């Protein structure tokens, strides 16, 4: 039983070892993600062709009303989870 508990503890420690446990590190990661997404959008808008903007990707890969409604539902749930509840 103690062996199983040890394995379980080790498995639980893996995610923490990968992403770390320092709150400033988490903030830095998420700011970097937002910066990367904004940079992609900016480059797409400033350069014609090549890199697609987010709007172009949405039009390309979510072209039908059903797919678009599903994406909006996911977006609404994410906002509700992150900011309201």
């Amino acid at each position, binding site marked *: 039983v103690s062996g199983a508990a040890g394995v379980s503890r080790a498995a*639980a*420690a893996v*995610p*923490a070892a*990968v*992403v*770390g*446990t*320092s*709150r400033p*590190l*988490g*903030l830095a*990661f*998420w*700011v970097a*993600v*937002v910066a*990367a*997404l*904004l940079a*992609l959008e900016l480059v*797409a808008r400033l350069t014609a*062709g*090549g*890199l*697609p903007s*987010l*709007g*172009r*990707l*949405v*039009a*390309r*890969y*979510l*072209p*039908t*009303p059903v797919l*678009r409604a599903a*994406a*909006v539902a996911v*977006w*609404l749930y*994410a*906002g*509700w*989870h*992150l*900011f*309201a*509840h």
Partner: protein
Amino acid sequence: VTPLLRRIAGSAAAGAIVLLSAWASGWPRSSLIAEVGTLASAVAVLAAGAACRRARTAAAPATSAQPAEPAPGGAAGAGERIGAALWLAVALVAVAWDLLALVTPPHRPHLTLSATTLGYRPFHALAFACWLGLGLVLAAAPVRQSGSGRHRRRRLPA
């Protein structure tokens, strides 16, 4: 819709999103103001995006010599596929991090997006603004109308 008018509307929308996000970052989670405010912001953004899409569609015949957007759902070029892969890579890294942060042991800080927005108010405002921007894009991007799809276009003579 003239380009100048479009630019003014875009700047006004961006300013409104920044102000709203700064205000929203002070809403306590699970409070009435947070729930009503988040829902109202979502509805407003979707309505603004839909209005933008309608205006662009109405103006399309007059300015269709150089279309800014491709036909919705049309075939993607190699450059566009590489660009899409870049977007996808950033999104996948973020999702992987969030899932790993979610399953960290209970006694350790969880570095999820949700926990980070709770812990840092400026980041909450930034994330809220990005969320509203994404909603605007989802509502404003052109939608393929029924009967105007790829298969129908293929039957048309070249």
